[in-house]
């Protein structure tokens, strides 16, 4: 089945291990990803921080391109991309806004395309279906499910799960046989795009997240966002140095764990390309 695919800049950049992981995993589930033709950056943090109009125009352009490609659904694995697409989609319900944006981006937008995040992709496959397809139960995994910010906020726009005590990832992992911990930092920000711009901020936030996960007995953290992965995985060594505490916390993409459960190898999923090696 064809699903429109909007990778976003991160997945084609330093987070291409995420792309490897989800491509391998989704292919096993029979999902073929077709990239949206001519997609451009969604604007990320820079656009909404510096230019409100641009922060609406860039995602709008991508919505229009997806419609031109005839996709009913578009999968955006990066929550910043998916949230911005949803934000514009909601805004164009106002006809004046829709008309103006269509003009700015030189393409007519209708907003009919559904936007899906990684968890929703798996939910659409069906938890029962996934359970039946499990080859290796993930019984050695004790994970802290980390949702981050933009999968769940703003709740009125993304309308996904509960923005304070989410459970969708835990539900998914439990059918795969993994154990999940109930911890307090599921939705606390990791510092997102500040990795380069303000490293200190990211280190202090990442520390709190890793620490709380560890305190609650987790040996790994599961994410569904490329920025969260970078801040918790690539920066883990820096966090450990700064705060003098070892975590050795494996940071999985959600698709890593689904893929492993379905019988794929760590190499196929690109898990060997993480900074923190698997335990």
């Amino acid at each position, binding site marked *: 089945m064809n699903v429109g695919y909007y990778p976003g800049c991160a997945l084609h950049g330093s987070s291409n291990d995420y792309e490897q992981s989800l491509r391998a995993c989704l292919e096993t589930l029979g999902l073929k990803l077709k990239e949206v033709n001519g997609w451009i950056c969604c604007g990320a943090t820079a656009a909404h921080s510096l230019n409100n109009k641009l922060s609406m125009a860039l995602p709008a352009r991508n919505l229009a391109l997806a419609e031109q490609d005839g996709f009913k659904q578009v999968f955006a694995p990066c929550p910043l991309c998916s949230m911005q697409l949803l934000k514009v989609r909601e805004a164009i319900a106002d006809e004046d806004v829709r008309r103006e944006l269509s003009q700015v981006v030189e393409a007519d937008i209708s907003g009919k395309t559904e936007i899906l995040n990684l968890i929703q992709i798996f939910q659409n496959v069906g938890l029962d279906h996934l359970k039946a397809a499990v080859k290796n139960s993930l019984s050695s995994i004790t994970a802290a499910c980390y949702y981050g910010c933009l999968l769940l906020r703003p709740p009125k726009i993304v309308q996904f799960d509960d923005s304070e005590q989410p459970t969708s990832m835990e539900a998914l992992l439990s059918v795969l046989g993994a154990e999940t911990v109930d911890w307090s930092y599921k939705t606390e920000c990791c510092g997102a795009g500040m990795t380069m711009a*303000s490293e200190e901020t990211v280190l202090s936030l990442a520390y709190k997240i890793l620490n709380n996960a560890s305190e609650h007995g987790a040996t790994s953290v599961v994410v569904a966002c490329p920025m969260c992965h970078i801040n918790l995985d690539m920066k883990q060594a820096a966090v450990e140095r700064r705060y003098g505490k070892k975590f050795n916390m494996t940071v999985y993409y959600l698709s890593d764990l689904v893929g492993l459960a379905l019988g794929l190898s760590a190499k196929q999923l690109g898990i060997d390309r993480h900074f923190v090696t698997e335990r």
Partner: protein
Amino acid sequence: MSNLSVPNAKTTPENPHLLPGTLPKGIHNPNHRDDSNAAQVALIETLSKTKTANCYKCGKCTAGCPVSEHMEIGPSQIIRLLQLGNVDKALRSSSIWQCVSCLTCSSRCPKEVDCAAIMDALREVSLLQDKVNPQAQQIVTFQRAFLDNIRRNGRLNELDLIARFKSTVALRTREFSFLFKDASLAPQLRRLKKLHLSQPRSKDLSVVDRIFARCTEIEK
């Protein structure tokens, strides 16, 4: 005219009670009608599509903000400044640049004030009116370099961004060690195949350029 921000006032014969280097609180006098302040507030409210009058200063945004403990002025105080008409102090604050746009504030606000959007609006106007806090230069440089990169390539070219960002900062601050910070990560990035020496650009770059032009034009 509310005279709340008087940076770096020195002791003079006229004001012998001031301590050098302090930022005095000043007196807020709402009897003085200042239309320019009202216009500034209106600008922020239009950009953020939210009413500052709705805020009843409960502080829940400050309490939930993951970086508020590092801020000089918390988010609820930023909004209070807008309520008082002192947009300038908000525009010149470092807080708006420390914000990580996690949207916790807006999601929890009991009065549905979109605090995160106000932060965005303050950032945009601060740049337009050239009131960016000196402490935030590095962050602003990064964001500008990012947007520049998108304009030229349609999608982000990471190496290009890193190179330009680091060199701009190093040149400005004259701290050339900044160029080599994180350089130790490079071999690892290479090994993990995360370093791309070249990246495909998106097609239709002229559209991207025109979109940018329209959005920057509208601004002015």
